């Protein structure tokens, strides 16, 4: 027993005797989630009230006992396996919907609320919550944020992190903290998204709700090749049509699914897309005509629109039954999760299929074509050790393929322990170091869900860092030089607060290249010193747009200063220099990335306090996007920001945090 008896006694005094369990059976039944990981905890604590979380964490912190927050435990990454033992915090009883405000468009919920329960409550009021993970009938909203879950509607509406407005959390030491999107400063909700309980326990959420979409039109289209189906999605994006769902299957999956569900899918097609449009009837009708044209142009074999609701349900029948169709084949199914830039999807899938054939592994491929996110479903028997090893090895190779194609090892399932080692495929040492610093800042005693996300002993295994551009290298050297001289540093462009400027500021104006405008993925990559006017004119030449206003300020400034918070959701990748002069990279041309802490959100609005942004990759659009008028309150530092700042910049050479300024 790792947890001292006195700690258990104190926990019982807070939660009640019946809610702190240490019997063998209870512990073994909280040792797993939907992955293959299984580790026995030392105790189980049923949390019945939000206000109990803080005292419980204080007690655990006092006795240095690790803990793992757990709700429905439906994740595929082993995020709920207590690797260091410790206490499982069962949050399923925190399942109350506290408020639904249709006037202002939000709902306040506890973390254990089942996603479908919220949807059902909202449906009665004519509203809906956009993220729709496939497991929505069982997964919880707290779990969704912790894993940054998303679903079929992600292409149009985004994942969980884009729909949480406010969050209450308790840091591992027991300190309560409130995060709000309306406050300037780093997007800590974004950082919490996908943190898998390693930074603390989420205790309350305020989520965005939207008026129910009344008109939906669904289409089933078949193609002679995967490349044609992906090109169709690209062409749709190019003409400004964003379907609310773009689900896809390859032929093998198609045949398996049809055999099981008899949904009427044509089994001779190499690829199948299910596309769904929503909006006003006129807009749908307009888009449907263009959709058909695009599909035909891309060699569509069959184009089947659903004329009635019954037909629509029939089109979805096979896709919804896909997991069941695969699950009936063998004792166990391991669901993989990888994402690549959309244009790379055909290549990645081809490589994955080759690999599966070489290894003689049975697997089906389902994918969200709009996001470049695919899920190989490996069929195996977990009682057969060699079989498990073979499948695990194959999954590693699949993830390596994703990374080689410029993708990520997780689009929506998270890292947990199952893909922890593969994080080294994707990230270089400085970036993994930054993840470690973030974790250490929030959880200095390493108690919150320890040993997750960050690979162990990654120094040698980490991916080789890509060389910096000469301008970035020069900037990095300047930072290192000032650090050695113990002089304040920072950039004028990314920190607009004059009284925090160092006497000699760096400039990112040399970083003025627009590196890439990709009309297949619909992304642009530019250095931080590019002015918004320059960016707009370059994009205009290609007839595309971004979600930023015009002006003379720089791209890095617009991103870091906190004035354009709506832009954060459009940023897909970032490169930044830290106060120690090291360069970190996160994301890229990926529509989804659930691997590691979300660094784009950490640097967004950080006002240069944590580092200097040197490069951004962001979404671009075929038509001018609406730029919302957002009202943000002044940035105020919080415990997490302070802790991260202290960890990254102990000498406080970069600009100070807001409340440390004495105007």
């Amino acid at each position, binding site marked *: 027993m790792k947890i001292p008896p006195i700690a258990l006694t104190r926990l019982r005094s807070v939660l009640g005797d019946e809610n702190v369990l240490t019997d*063998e059976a209870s512990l073994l039944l909280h040792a797993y989630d939907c992955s293959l990981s299984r580790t026995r905890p030392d105790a189980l604590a*049923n949390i019945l009230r939000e206000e109990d979380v803080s005292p419980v964490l204080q007690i655990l912190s006092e006795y240095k006992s690790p803990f793992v927050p757990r709700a429905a435990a*439906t994740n595929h990454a082993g995020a709920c396996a207590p690797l260091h033992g410790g206490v499982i915090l*069962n949050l399923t009883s925190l399942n109350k919907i506290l408020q639904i405000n249709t006037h202002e468009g939000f709902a306040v919920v506890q973390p254990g609320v089942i996603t*479908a329960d919220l949807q059902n409550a909202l449906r009665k009021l004519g509203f809906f919550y956009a993220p729709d993970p496939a497991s929505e009938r069982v997964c919880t909203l707290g779990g969704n944020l912790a894993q940054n879950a998303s679903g079929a509607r992600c292409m149009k509406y985004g994942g969980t992190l884009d729909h949480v407005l406010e969050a209450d959390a308790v840091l591992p030491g027991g300190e309560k903290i409130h995060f709000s999107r309306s406050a300037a400063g780093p997007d800590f909700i974004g950082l919490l998204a996908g943190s898998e309980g390693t930074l603390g326990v989420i205790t309350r959420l305020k989520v965005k709700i939207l008026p129910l979409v009344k008109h939906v039109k669904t289409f089933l289209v078949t193609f002679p090749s995967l490349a044609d189906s992906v090109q169709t999605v690209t062409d749709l994006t190019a003409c400004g049509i964003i379907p609310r769902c773009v689900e896809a299957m390859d032929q093998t999956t198609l045949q398996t699914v049809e055999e099981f569900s008899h949904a009427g899918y044509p089994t001779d097609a190499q690829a199948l897309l299910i596309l769904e449009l929503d909006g006003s009837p006129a807009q749908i009708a307009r888009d449907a005509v263009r959709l058909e044209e695009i599909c035909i142009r891309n060699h569509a074999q069959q184009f089947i629109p659903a004329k009635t609701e019954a037909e629509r349900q029939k089109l979805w029948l096979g896709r919804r039954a896909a997991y069941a169709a695969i699950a*009936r084949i063998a*004792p*166990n199914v391991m669901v993989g999760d990888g994402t690549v830039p959309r244009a790379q999807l055909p290549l990645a899938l081809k490589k994955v299929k080759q690999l599966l054939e070489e290894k003689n592994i049975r697997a089906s491929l389902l994918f969200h074509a709009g996001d470049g996110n695919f899920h190989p479903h490996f069929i195996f028997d977990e009682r057969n050790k060699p079989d498990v090893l073979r499948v695990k090895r194959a999954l590693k190779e699949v993830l390596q393929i994703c990374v080689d194609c410029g993708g990520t090892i997780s689009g929506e399932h998270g890292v947990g322990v199952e893909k922890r080692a593969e994080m080294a495929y994707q990230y270089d040492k400085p970036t993994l170091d930054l993840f470690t610093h973030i974790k250490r800042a929030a959880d200095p005693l390493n108690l919150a869900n320890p040993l997750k996300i960050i690979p162990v002993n990654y120094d040698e295994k980490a991916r080789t860092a890509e060389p910096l551009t000469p301008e970035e290298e020069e900037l990095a050297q300047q930072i290192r030089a000032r650090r050695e001289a113990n002089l304040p540093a920072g950039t004028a462009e990314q920190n607009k607060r004059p009284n925090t400027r160092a006497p000699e500021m760096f400039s990112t104006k040399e970083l003025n290249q627009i590196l890439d405008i990709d009309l297949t993925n619909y992304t642009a990559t530019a250095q931080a010193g590019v002015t918004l006017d320059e960016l707009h004119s370059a994009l205009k030449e290609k007839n595309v747009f971004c979600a930023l206003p015009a002006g003379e300020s720089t791209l890095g400034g617009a991103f870091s200063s906190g004035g354009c918070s709506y832009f954060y959701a459009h940023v897909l990748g970032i490169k930044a220099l830290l106060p120690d002069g090291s360069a970190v990279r996160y994301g890229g041309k990926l529509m989804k990335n659930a691997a590691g802490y979300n660094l784009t959100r950490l640097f967004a609005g950080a006002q240069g306090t944590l580092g200097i942004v040197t490069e951004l990759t962001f979404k671009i659009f075929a038509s001018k996007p609406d730029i919302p008028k957002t009202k943000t309150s002044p940035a105020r530092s919080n415990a997490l920001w302070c802790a991260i700042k202290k960890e990254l910049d102990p000498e406080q050479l970069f600009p100070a945090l807001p409340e440390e300024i004495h105007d």
Partner: protein
Amino acid sequence: MTKKFLPTPHETLRALHTPLGERTVYDSAAHCTRCGSCQQTCPSYIFKRQETFSPRGRNQAFRLVLEGKLNPQANKPLLEEILFSCTLCGRCTQTCAGKIPTAEHMLELRRRLQTKMLPGTLHALLSLRQKSPVWFGHTVRLGLLLRRAGLVKIGRTLKLTDLFGLGWINRADELLPRKITRLSRALAQHGCTAPEKPTLIYLPSLEAEFFLPELALSTLKAASKKHRVSVWRNTASGLFEYVYGDLRQSRLAVRRLIIRREREGSLPLLTDSIDVFTFLKRAPQLFAGNKHWEEKARRLAENLVFVTDFLSAPAKKTAPFPTPVRLDYSALFTREEAPFAAAEKILKTHFKKNFVECFYTDADTPAFGYGFVRNNLARAMGLQTVRAVAQTQTPTVFTLSGLAALELNRLFKRFYPNAKAAHVVNLHG
């Protein structure tokens, strides 16, 4: 592993007939991928909100026990609590992609732990039906006579029924109708006699035989339109033994049914209880490994008919039920057998928009005497059903078993008197 935990083969099933084919018990348990899709459909999980009392937790516990990773004797109290919390409703199997028969796993665990689920006296009484049907009949009738004489009421007032493990009498007293006619008398009154050259065998359920003779009469009336029906009075189907008792006795009962049916011309077998129906549909798995009897049991299962096969939507004027109506899906092991689809179709045809679809989180009345296993949990689940009925203001709930109708009416009487439950066979009035 203790000797007690290793039952002889005849005390456990050799294989399970799952919706995805025949599997050994261990194979079946190992098919669970722990995806958790079953959690929210489980009535006891919704109530308890703990993994331990969820279908996934139950399957994992069972698997750990089979693999010898969880000592069943050392953990018996919690394992029994896990068993007690499962109503065997099969909603988890319905949701499960791999169609894991969790209810069957729990029955296997019961057998391995040799757990007595029912109060001892009730168990002894119900066991008598298979062993000595005549004495069982006499005992039940004597009990009903004493009840009619007011002795149960006196016993309850003086709290005597709480003594000697007879607390279940209070519940039974609340459950059963005040006035109960003997089935033989009811049959005679309606001129039902044994026909020559019958074309169908009717096996009345326990409740139809002793407590709800009108259910038996309605079933007979419905079936008589197409068949000459022979009634097998007071005949055990083996279901009670399968769920609560000894597997050997259950096999014996089914074997008797098979022999008698073959002797009487291998006629189709009609039942009024969905629980008996789902059990006999699974009868072949009782004989897994014995090809001869497995084949016979398969033929029995194939020749099983349910009352819904003889029902049609009644003419509008004859329907005596206030609308809207809904269907209670209370059943053992599954909600996916044909009678549910048939009942749904009939009710939808007749009541059209007045048929209320059940929501996936709506609970059903706990099936087959679960109330006698865990009254408090059964009551909580039953109240969820009542709440769902009240929310949709549904005055009529149809069930596919008489026992479920009794359970529901008991709750309605107290918590929502506007509603009544009735067996679907009474649709004709």
